């Protein structure tokens, strides 16, 4: 067998293996979506069917009209958008300052940011909860936001980018031309940070959208649940109706997956950047 043929055969085998693995990885999700289309009776059949024999849209209809799912999605969305805006804004400004204004005070602040970056949110969320309670912000998006206003990694990411891709001379030239500092930040620095800011936005949105531990203690009233919390508690309220549960989960899942497939590049950039921070 020639070298080319041999390579081709290996590649084919590898492709088949990868294909099978990928399908296996996606199977649980495909089954979930399929379950959403089954009637409640079919869900109780043994052995379980893979695909619905009699697909119905009834579950999805119920999920959107009879359960608070839509409201939960709205809550999550509002929370995620606001968090993203806050994180992007604070990270951009703070990252810029830390990167281009190396005064001693600023450096000390940076070290503080860095030191607390590795501390997981779960460690200090209880005192933060009491703060939020004291402010009367429980069960509101504002209360949720309190935990997700800044992202240490975001500040770090912007700082790295600012140092790597914004030359000091550019800022000096603008200053000599008489530009004010804020003007420089808005018209010179921000446009250059478009890429990393987009990646950060995607990351921040994803972080808020999938948050669990914090929303579950801050939101106790069913109406204010985020999707994650709502779904998790769904099982106790609607235990018997598995197909409804699956439909609800599928409804939550599909937008995220779609968003990912569309925004893949930004997403991957953000995650890869977090891997290179060391």
């Amino acid at each position, binding site marked *: 067998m020639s070298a080319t043929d041999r390579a081709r055969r290996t590649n084919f085998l590898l492709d088949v293996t990868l294909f099978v693995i990928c399908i296996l990885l996606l199977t649980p999700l495909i089954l979930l979506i399929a379950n959403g289309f089954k009637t409640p009776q079919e869900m109780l059949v043994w052995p379980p069917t893979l695909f619905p024999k009699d697909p119905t849209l009834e579950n999805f209809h119920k999920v959107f009209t009879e359960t608070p799912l839509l409201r939960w999605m709205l809550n999550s969305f509002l929370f995620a958008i606001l968090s993203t805006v806050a994180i992007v804004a604070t990270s951009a*400004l703070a990252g810029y300052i830390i990167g281009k204004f190396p005064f001693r005070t600023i450096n000390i602040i940076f070290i503080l940011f860095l030191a607390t970056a590795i501390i997981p949110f779960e460690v200090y969320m209880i005192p933060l909860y009491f703060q939020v309670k004291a402010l009367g912000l429980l069960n509101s998006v504002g209360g949720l936001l309190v935990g997700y206003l800044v992202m240490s990694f975001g500040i770090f990411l912007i700082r790295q980018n600012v140092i790597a891709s914004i030359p000091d001379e550019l800022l000096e030239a603008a200053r000599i031309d008489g530009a004010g500092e804020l003007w420089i930040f808005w018209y010179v620095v921000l446009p250059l940070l478009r890429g990393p800011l987009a990646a950060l936005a995607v990351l921040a949105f994803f972080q808020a959208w999938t948050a669990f531990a914090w929303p579950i203690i801050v939101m106790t009233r069913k109406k204010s649940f985020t999707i994650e919390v709502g779904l998790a508690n769904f099982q106790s309220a609607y235990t018997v109706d598995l197909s409804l549960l699956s439909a609800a989960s599928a409804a939550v899942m599909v937008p995220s997956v779609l968003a990912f497939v569309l925004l893949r590049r930004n997403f991957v950039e953000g995650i890869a950047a977090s891997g290179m921070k060391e």
Partner: protein
Amino acid sequence: MLRRKQFWFAIMAILPTFAIFGWVRLFPIIETLRLSMHEWNLLSKNKPFVGFQNFIELFGDNQFMDALTNTAVIAFGAMAVTIPMSMVLAAIIYHRTRSRFSGFYETAVFIPHVVSLVPAAMAWKWIFDAKLGPLNAIIMGLGGDALPWLFDPVLSVICIIFLVSWQTLGYGVLIYLVGFRNLPKSVFEAAQLDGANGFQSFLYMSVPLLKPITLYVSVVTLISGFNVYAQAYVLASDTQGAPGRQVRVLVLDMLENSFQNFRVGYAAAEAVILLSIVLLLTMIQFGLLRGKGGR
């Protein structure tokens, strides 16, 4: 003159972020540390200082030790599964970079990571369901016995490890792919000429050269493993349906102590222990990384 102006701008500009940071990060962290040495039952104004008593009590507390053990097993188990699998998968995907399916592979592998925790857990909950799930159906079809996946103490932990690994795999593959792309190509050509086949190249070249990445992914997955909560909450409801009680994890125990047992100081002590574990793991990572670079 210009420098002073810049200094004040810098301070003013960073003040809002720093203020927020101080309020939502620094203060709570310090509070946690402080509370861990006090006793507080949420209702009274009294928060007596108790020194290290909370910690001493924790280590005698069966529920806590249970949670600690479970969490550690999940964290290390998930890491042990994720690292080799993502490295091998990344190696194969990298080898097929030029295939027209490479985009599909990367996307497919990463989707489990992107799907938020709860829907993913729901998907698996059904699969693992002892009476209705396809897993037992397949096992019985092959002639075996159905197993109570989610209700057996050992099996349910395995299920959680499985779920966590499934979710983390994509992340690991992504990071390893970046690593593979940065490996020097000529080194592999030299190995090829020296007689290495694909598998030997992977074992003797890729694996050692990727050590920094393996280290990083290990620590990240370990740390997020110790913080596991949502997956246990959903998958491991006990026989009465109370969520997460079947497999107690640290975060669950901590929240229970704080909001159900009304022992905030005690819960804070748990948080401090969690923090110490995370710090320890991070320091080990730094130490190992420096050890390699220093020589």
